[in-house]
């Protein structure tokens, strides 16, 4: 029986109380931590790997509809300006141009108004959009707009914004106890100030949408991490029923947080398509994507720590000044300071400064990654001041209680992560790295800890359909943006159904079936969706065995299904599943499942530890990351193959954050100067260190039925801090800003 329960959900640290639909008759029992599972926990190649490797995967940019118009966005060339003139009619007169919208156009969409601004607040802000028969004609239309702007004063210097108190929201002051008094009383204190860079998500498939109307029904392909959010946003914007909007997003060429909901691209494409009466394709060019796709906000952080001589942290006082750009949700930069270690006296001040850059948005572990980068360096400074092993200091201040709520963690294997990482990295011998090296380079090893949410929760649903040929289809609300979560759903369903993997296929990326799944963000897909998949599959298995009982005239309790065969416990029956399913004819066995709420009284988090080894060329200022050991506690691992891929990807983005990636903004003009792929340096294969990965892999028994947590964000969180700590270990110096460019390294070593 279905019931509504009141429960608390979490997305990147934001909690919300919601009604969740749960199935009370669902008696799926949790897999025991030591359960003998045949598929879950074994490496499985992606079910759609062959399509991706052969170039058959169809991304939004590949959608081709007859009569499609191509849209080009006119973007503000200045950081702040006011449109003096914009010749929309001139653009409309260009041959092939079919629709043009500007700041003053009357639009049919009713929300997110204005879609286009006559006073753009950042370089790259959309001012107008032209749709035409060809891309070339659309570009000609943009030229014909003859944009004339009055240039207004801009502000991109965060310190200046702080002085002028220009905030996107009120600064926050989160405190417990009295950090000031505790600091004054501390036996040992350290203080560290440093800057972290703006980082661009840089998905290789840019933001893109292809919109097509049939009467009052909208079909739209969107390169998004959140197809249901996109559907709801579009339905609201155009006054449609949700069921009259179909969002398709089967393959997404990367997101990393930047592709939330419909976005400007889907709204603009739908609007232009409505005006022109033809499908419209809007794909950002690379420069537009780097200017307007999103950004991890740059920050300046100061951390003051107090401790007693035995290494007990007694005071944490941290502040963060965040370059928000035009706005957006405030990233939780000081969560690591507030929660990573046991401490009663904590103060965290956050200043969200408004600047003339695009609104910052989510980038893999938003806030927490840059917060960890500063906080975990301060912890190493404290270890130095105490003359204590940095890992030992972390162990000493470990806690199993969430420091903000006072509730226990549902599970926490952080101590095991420390031990395993230390073993894999050869931590005990790290001192030897500082002895003179044969190649003349300086070497060092550093560690950092990781905390993130990642417990998932309702609502999340799945349906499983078994056909007469013994093949099952799993319908989910997953957007598999490259994480491999559809393959995980395939594995979990096959495990529960007792079918071979090849006979199970998981589908997602389409809102039409209306099987809801969460946005592919916040490390919540796996923990949210897998229990729903398991529950749906369990119902199908039960029905299958009941039908087998009818066929073989045997009690259901004496039957089991595994490896695609139905067997009786006495061995008398041992047949292919199709012996039963063939009798279905054209009927199917269907089951639906939902994700139950997380149990009350616990806080769910993921944990981990990374240890980096670096070499430093003191003459050239070159830092190379030689090795990263990454051990993360994310509960049970469904597919170690794709899980290790997630870790490698996170580590590499963290390596780049530490060494090469930085959005550089010209203070004179307020314009980003490296918003291209040739000068915004994302890592190449030649920059890749050896990455050693392990997971405790212990199921979280307090989480429903699969014991899994999310893994998207954890691996990026501690990497840069571990590298910076390794740099300090190697050189005895700490750079006051990341990334560790040659210039900064030479300055630090001078």
């Amino acid at each position: 029986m279905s019931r509504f329960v009141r429960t608390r959900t979490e997305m990147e640290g934001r909690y919300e109380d919601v009604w969740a639909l749960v199935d009370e008759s669902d008696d799926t029992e949790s897999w025991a931590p030591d359960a003998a599972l045949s598929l879950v926990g074994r490496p499985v190649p992606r079910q759609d790997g062959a399509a991706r490797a052969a170039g058959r995967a169809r991304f939004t940019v590949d959608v081709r509809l007859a009569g499609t118009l191509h849209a080009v966005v006119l973007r503000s060339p200045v950081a702040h300006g006011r449109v003096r003139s914009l010749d929309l009619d001139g653009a409309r007169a260009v041959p092939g141009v079919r629709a043009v919208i500007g700041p003053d156009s009357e639009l049919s969409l009713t929300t997110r108004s204005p879609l286009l601004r006559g006073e753009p607040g950042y370089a790259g802000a959309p001012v107008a959009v032209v749709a035409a028969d060809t891309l070339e004609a659309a570009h000609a239309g943009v030229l014909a707009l003859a944009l004339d702007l009055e240039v207004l004063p801009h502000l991109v210097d965060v310190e200046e914004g702080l002085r002028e108190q220009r905030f996107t929201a009120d600064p926050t002051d989160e405190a417990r106890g009295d950090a000031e008094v505790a600091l004054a009383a501390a036996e040992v204190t350290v203080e560290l100030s440093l800057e972290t860079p703006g980082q661009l998500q840089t998905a290789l498939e840019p933001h893109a949408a292809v919109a097509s109307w049939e009467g009052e029904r909208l079909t739209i392909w969107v390169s998004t991490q959140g197809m249901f959010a996109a559907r709801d946003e579009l339905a609201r914007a155009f006054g449609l029923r949700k069921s009259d909007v179909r969002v398709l997003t089967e393959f997404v060429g990367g997101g990393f947080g930047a592709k939330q909901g419909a976005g400007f691209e889907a709204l603009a494409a739908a609007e232009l398509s409505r005006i022109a009466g033809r499908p419209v394709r809007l794909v950002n060019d690379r420069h537009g994507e780097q200017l307007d796709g999103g950004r991890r906000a740059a920050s300046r952080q100061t951390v003051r720590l107090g401790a007693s001589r035995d290494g007990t942290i007694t005071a944490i006082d941290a502040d963060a000044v965040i370059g928000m750009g035009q706005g957006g949700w405030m990233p939780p930069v000081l969560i690591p300071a507030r929660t990573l270690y046991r401490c009663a006296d904590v103060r965290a001040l956050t200043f969200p400064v408004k600047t003339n850059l695009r609104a910052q948005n989510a980038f893999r572990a938003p806030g927490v990654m840059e917060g960890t980068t500063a906080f975990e360096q301060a912890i190493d400074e404290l270890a130095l001041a105490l003359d204590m092993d940095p890992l030992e200091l972390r162990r000493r201040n470990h806690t199993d209680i969430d420091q903000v709520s006072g509730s226990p963690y549902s599970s926490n294997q952080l101590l095991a992560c420390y031990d395993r990482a230390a073993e894999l990295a050869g931590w005990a011998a790290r001192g030897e790295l500082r002895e003179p090296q044969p190649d003349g380079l300086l070497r060092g090893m550093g560690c950092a800890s990781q905390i993130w949410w990642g417990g998932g929760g309702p609502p999340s649903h799945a349906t499983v359909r078994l056909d007469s040929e013994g093949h099952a289809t799993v319908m989910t609300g997953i957007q598999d943006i490259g994480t491999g979560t559809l393959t995980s759903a395939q594995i979990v369903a096959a495990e529960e159904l007792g079918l071979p993997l090849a006979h199970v296929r998981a589908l997602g990326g389409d809102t039409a079936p209306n099987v809801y799944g969460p946005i592919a963000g916040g490390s919540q897909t796996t923990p949210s969706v897998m229990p729903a998949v398991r529950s749906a599959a369990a119902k199908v298995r039960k029905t299958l065995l009941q039908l087998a009982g009818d066929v073989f005239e045997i009690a259901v309790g004496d039957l089991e299904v595994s490896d695609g065969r139905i067997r009786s416990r006495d061995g008398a029956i041992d047949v292919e599943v199709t012996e039963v399913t063939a009798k279905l004819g054209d009927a199917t066995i269907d089951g639906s499942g939902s994700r139950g709420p997380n149990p009350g009284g616990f806080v769910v988090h993921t944990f981990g530890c990374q240890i980096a080894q670096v070499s430093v060329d003191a003459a050239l200022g070159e830092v190379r990351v030689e090795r990263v050991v990454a051990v993360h506690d994310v509960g049970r691992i469904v597919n170690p193959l794709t899980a290790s891929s997630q870790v490698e990807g996170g580590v590499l983005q963290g390596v780049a954050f530490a060494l090469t990636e930085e959005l550089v903004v010209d203070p004179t003009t307020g314009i980003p100067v490296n918003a291209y792929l040739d000068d915004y340096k994302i890592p190449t294969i030649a920059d890749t260190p050896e990455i050693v990965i392990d997971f405790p892999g212990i199921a979280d028994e307090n989480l429903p039925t699969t014991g899994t947590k999310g893994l998207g964000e954890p691996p990026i969180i501690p990497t840069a801090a571990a590298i910076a700590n390794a740099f300090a270990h190697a050189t005895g110096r700490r750079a006051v800003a990341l990334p560790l460019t040659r210039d900064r390294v030479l300055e630090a070593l001078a």
Partner: protein
Amino acid sequence: MEVILEVNGERHSVVPSGRRLLAVLRDDLELLGTKLACGEGACGACAVLVDGRPVNACLLLAEAAVGHQIVTIEGLSVGRAHAVQEAFVAEDALQCGYCTPGQVVSATALLERTPAPTREQIHEAMAGNLCRCGAYPKIERAILRAAGSA
């Protein structure tokens, strides 16, 4: 002006109109496996083989490809290329898959000229193919695996 392009062993009559090879492949021939990501030769997502060598199709004028043998990801399904694709899947050398066609094209070209590459040779040959998801460790393993199976 109409020209003949030889793509994946077939002759196609196309009108380049000053466009790059990538635009002609995707828009005229609907060979959609080759991807546009940067448009300035910085990422390798548009890599195709021209007379067996990997070339960024976003920088090559379509007219300049006349008289040369062009092979796109769609034309790479036999022999060594097939082994590369199988190795990419087996090693999970792909995540979102957007850069993967270009990676497979470059890896195939590498193995054609260097059947048993070292780690350094792989890094040198593949450094022009960016993967934002960070599949690099497994791309390296996949290339070594394909080399071993060839």
